[in-house]
């Protein structure tokens, strides 16, 4: 039973019409100004970022995007960022800190792009630097996992004070196919992998890996977008308010401790 269930999550999370960062920006934010480029090499359209208002307050919004048709999917590289995307995100986050804007990131990615240029330009370094920087940023950070959150490619935008998953999204060390391929040299065993990986919102909340779950409408977020927007709007407003009231040193200490205690080893 669990097997089919976890597999259904994957199907819902990966649906072509899954709501994307573009939808959420349009529905929940006003005055969005998109910022392009990492100022070093190029613009990476797999990651969308810019400044907007949320309930009137300026915030920085960043999200990975896959695209909703083949043309978009190709243009956005199926949601697999290159190092330039992570570096653009870091540039925007540092600017958010300078101007005291909270940061909201939306995650939906199969992972960072495995390509020759991505390696030549330091994919690993780009992700590592993002996590290092995010852990110290002196503004509240919220991460919403809206679809798939796979590997370091997702975590590189998810070192946040409040990490929340939509109830049908998934978050894992690798895609179930990649997992099965590495572990058993057989990508077709992905269903079995799903079952073992603990990648659903409920599993991850229980394990203390994420801080909250937003229940999706029946049939998934895409089945009833208006209801999804209302639920997310309410949750973001509540947690942004709560995080914004914390003294910055407490916020940084709690952020550190949260990630510090994930994973327990026996002495």
């Amino acid at each position, binding site marked *: 039973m669990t097997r089919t269930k976890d597999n259904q999550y994957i199907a819902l999370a990966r649906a072509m019409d899954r709501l994307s960062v573009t939808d959420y920006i349009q529905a929940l934010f006003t005055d969005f100004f998109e910022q392009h480029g990492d100022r070093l090499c190029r613009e990476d359209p797999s990651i969308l970022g810019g400044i907007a208002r949320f309930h009137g307050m300026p915030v920085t919004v960043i999200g990975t995007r896959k695209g909703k048709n083949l043309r978009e999917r190709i243009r956005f590289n199926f949601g697999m960022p290159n190092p330039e995307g992570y570096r653009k995100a*870091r540039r925007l986050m540092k600017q958010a800190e300078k101007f005291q804007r909270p940061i909201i990131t939306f995650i939906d990615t199969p992972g*960072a*792009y*495995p*390509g*020759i240029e*991505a*390696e*030549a*330009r*330091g*994919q*690993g*370094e780009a*992700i*590592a*630097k993002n*996590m*290092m*920087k995010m*852990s*110290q940023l002196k503004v509240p950070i919220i991460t919403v996992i809206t679809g798939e959150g796979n*590997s*370091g490619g997702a*975590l*590189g935008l*998810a*070192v946040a004070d409040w990490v929340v998953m939509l109830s049908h999204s998934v*978050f*894992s*060390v*690798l895609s179930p196919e*990649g*997992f099965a391929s*590495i*572990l058993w040299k057989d990508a077709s065993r992905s269903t079995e992998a799903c079952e*073992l*990986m*603990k*990648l659903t919102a409920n599993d*991850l909340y229980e*394990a203390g*890996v994420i801080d909250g779950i937003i229940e999706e409408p029946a049939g998934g977020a895409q089945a009833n977008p208006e209801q999804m927007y209302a639920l997310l709007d309410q949750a973001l407003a509540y947690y942004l308010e709560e995080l914004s009231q914390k003294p910055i040193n407490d916020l940084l200490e709690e*952020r*550190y401790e949260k*990630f*510090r205690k*994930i*994973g*327990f*080893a*026996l*002495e």
Partner: protein
Amino acid sequence: MDFDRELRNHQMADGDLELSICPKCNAQFAKKELADRQHVCPNCGYHYRIGAYDRLRIILDADSFEELDETLHSTDPLDFPGYREKLNQMRKKTGLDDAVVMAVGTIKNIPVVVVVLDSRFSMGSMGVVVGEKITRAVEYADEQKLPLLIFSASGGARMQEGIFSLMQMAKTSSALARFSGHRGFFISILTDPTMGGVTASFASLGDIILAEPGALIGFAGARVIEQTIGQSLPEGFQRAEYLEEHGFIDAIVPRPQLRDTLAQLLLLHQPKQEAVYDSNEG
């Protein structure tokens, strides 16, 4: 320290008078001779992968090191089928409890905190124990105001620990951010192989990043890249020399010179005075 474990490790590494065939040039040497040459091929300079204790023996002053938290071991957090048995087998084979050794010791009398990943144990993959020991080492170096050296040798994430493995990337990177903010000095040494989540976290965050010649270093594995792009990879791709050319490491240092280079760097970073330092790089 655990002398039995040390002894087992030593026997493992040095073998007897067995022959070793260099995987690069096919020349044959007695294992003993290779060990005397720090496991570098006398014919072609190929750097063999070495275990954590061999590494410590090469780098640290004789008898200077004390191992910390050596019994830390995995809880099997996903209750993953067959994982406990696999861990037990690897423990028997290597004498290690997991893929990492953490120690304090000296290099030419300069005290350091050292972490070494061991590729003989689950290809040095990072699960909770590796992430936890690295984080403890960073925090210890921070408290004691000591320089930190991490020798990476890892295929990436420990699949059997799933999401908990992934989260070690955030944990170690956060600890290094604090250490860096307190002016802590961190040398990251990339050895063969340094891949995946290890490259995408602590290994890429050194103030100085060194690599051994020929070491494979990257984020995505060659097979995954080839499958994705449908073409074969260029010669020398993801080797230390390629990384240096692309601007991601400070220097490639052959193993016989590594100890001297580390000592030189440590001396260049001996603290002069306390001062407030605002970490705003990156």
